[in-house]
């Protein structure tokens, strides 16, 4: 594996399978009464969050703590960053504190690349602008694998604002690496003009794609897109690209419905779909901790076995 995890493209097929297998092993400890392993004892992980994202931050925090790492949460609000400190100076400060790993969430695409040039520790991208969110893709793949088995040849449909979605970018790359067939479905305004160069297909017709899908992943419609002429109205978007009960009925029996959260119920996903047995939305949250544990372990943990000798039993 590379020293950093910045893009899903950093992962070879073997790397990706190693992360997923490791996550599977680590998931076992979630069922134990004491959910802690000594693997990263003495290591420091900094959660550097320039955007508010409670769910991703606590997921990384739980992952690091279950591996016994020391966790420092650094959020931009109320810190030196809000006083105008540059990313570089923040990076140098973390470096001086001896961070072994930095988990960064930032509103600017490419911020983790820049950070990786300024710190010695491993950088984990927890979402950068409209670029990537590789641990989300790993937890999604982990969730699919648990429900459906091997992803080779599986048909995954990703629906929504692909243009601005870091989740979609990372998923397209990782799922392609893992052998799945990805189809993006969106209004033409919300796919990049060069989407033809991506390793996936594109459709504008959700109803045509659903009956052939093993997985449907619904993306959140961001509030700021709603009045920017990407589509005429929220209701029209919802009619054409939302997943409601009738559409869900077109899916094959075994198919699952995913959403990276937070959801707009009634916009991209109907409540009855979100709460149905096909929905993996809550599982995804739980799996997020396992996938992030696997990433932190593999980047920071060195050669010790992931589960150790059952010290925490």
């Amino acid at each position, binding site marked *: 594996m590379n020293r950093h995890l910045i893009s899903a493209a950093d992962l070879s097929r073997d790397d990706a399978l190693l992360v997923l297998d490791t996550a599977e092993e680590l998931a076992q400890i979630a069922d134990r009464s004491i959910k802690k392993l000594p693997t990263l004892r003495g290591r420091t992980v900094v959660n550097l969050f320039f955007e508010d994202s409670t769910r991703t931050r606590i997921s990384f925090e739980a992952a690091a703590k279950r591996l016994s790492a020391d966790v420092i949460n650094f959020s931009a609000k109320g810190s030196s960053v809000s006083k105008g400190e540059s990313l570089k100076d923040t990076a140098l400060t973390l470096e001086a504190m001896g961070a072994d790993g930095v988990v960064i969430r930032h509103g600017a695409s490419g911020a983790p690349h820049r950070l990786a040039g300024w710190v010695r520790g491993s950088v984990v991208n927890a979402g950068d602008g409209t670029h990537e969110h590789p641990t989300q893709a790993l937890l999604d793949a982990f969730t699919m694998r648990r429900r459906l088995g091997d992803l080779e040849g599986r048909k995954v449909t990703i629906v929504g604002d692909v243009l601005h979605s870091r989740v979609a970018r990372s998923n397209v790359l990782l799922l392609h690496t893992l052998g799945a067939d990805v189809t993006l479905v969106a209004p033409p305004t919300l796919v*990049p003009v060069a989407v033809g160069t991506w390793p996936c297909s594109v459709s504008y017709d959700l109803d045509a794609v659903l009956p052939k899908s093993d997985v449907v992943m619904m993306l959140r419609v961001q509030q700021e897109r709603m009045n920017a002429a990407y589509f005429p109205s929220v209701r029209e978007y919802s009619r054409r690209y939302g997943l409601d009960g009738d559409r869900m009925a077109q899916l094959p029996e075994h198919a699952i419905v995913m959403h990276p959260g937070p959801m707009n119920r009634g916009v991209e996903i109907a409540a009855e779909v979100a709460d149905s047995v096909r929905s993996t939305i809550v599982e995804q949250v739980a799996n997020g901790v396992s996938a992030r544990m696997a990433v932190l372990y593999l980047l920071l943990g060195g050669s010790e076995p992931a589960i150790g000798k059952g010290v925490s039993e």
Partner: protein
Amino acid sequence: MSYLIKGARVLGGEAADILVRDEGIAAVGAGLDAGGAEVVEAGGLIALPGLVDLHTHLREPGREDAETVGSGTRSAAMGGFTAVHAMANTDPVADTAGVVEQVWRLGREAGYCDVQPVGAVTRGIAGEQLAELGAMADSAARVRVFSDDGHCVSDAVIMRRALEYVKAFDGVVAQHAQEPRLTEGAQMNEGEMSAALGLRGWPAVAEEAIIARDVLLAQHVGSRLHVCHVSTAGSVEIIRWAKSKGCPVTAEVTPHHLLLTDDRCGGYDPIFKVNPPLRTGDDVAALRHALADGTIDCVATDHAPHPVEAKETEWAEAAMGMIGLETALPVVQEAMVETGLLDWAGVADRMSYKPARIGRLSGQGRPLEAGSPANITLYDPSARRAVDPSAMTSKSRNTPFAGLELPGRVVATFLRGRPTVLEGKLQ
């Protein structure tokens, strides 16, 4: 003071001597007698007319931390330039006779190359009201080129009026062609790279649509239009068509758009962030051919200095622009001469004669012959070296060519008979 430049290949042709006396060229020919003149050995060097840049950001007044008229003109001299056009987007904006005269005077005092101020088209480059173009034209700075560069004159009526108005004093409007609504928040060329990197795209059509509109306007009102930093193959096609219809349009291309493509943006290093953005290999090829066939009239650097902290940041936060005065000629050699697209006479045309003519600079861009002002650049095309940002004379270091090995070296620059650079060193 007199100089005898011995054995230089004038415009890359046969070796000849050039006798410089006082401010002018006294004679050009074989075996001239030094007669007391200081001899400058120029065997193997190419003699070019002093280079003229139509598009330079000197940053003074306002951002003297990035560049000053002094440092920028020293950088220009090191690059072989004897005249630069100082862009108007300073702080305060060069939109009054007072500011353009200040910049012009600072250039005269520095003495390293002629500084011809560009006047803003609109007040505060806000695109709403015409600046006092006539006052700037009549000032001591004798402004002939007007531009809101950095911003597009996007309002079609304002653009039409500006084009018409400057006819009274033979001015030209130099348009930064960028449709503002299509490029809100734009970060890089819209295409495969922007899609992969998740950076907001700057589509080629946003440049091409404005150029198409402006050539039609210029044709309609019979005014001179100059297009700044053309960056796309589509723009080339539109300009070629406009010229074929007799439209009085001229155009420039930057050295960086002749050499670099948008895959440089892959590591998110904002040293490659520039406006208009780096485009694709097809665009680069089209620009080179357009410069060779004359569709694009000249090379202009768009030298845009920025302090280190403006580039050591996230991509979206970073300033747009690259320095280019000291690498312009080497890049043109690499992109145009080594590829066989342009000979040295062509380089003289695209980097000296044409820009001087577009800017209406009578004392610049003159052929190297007796009677011309002695604005001369001596260039060693056989040198090769890696670009070293810390070795730049510019106050800023934001060169996108760092580490790249480029051919050529400016050995000497003469401004009206006085060497500003000799043996590669600033005088």
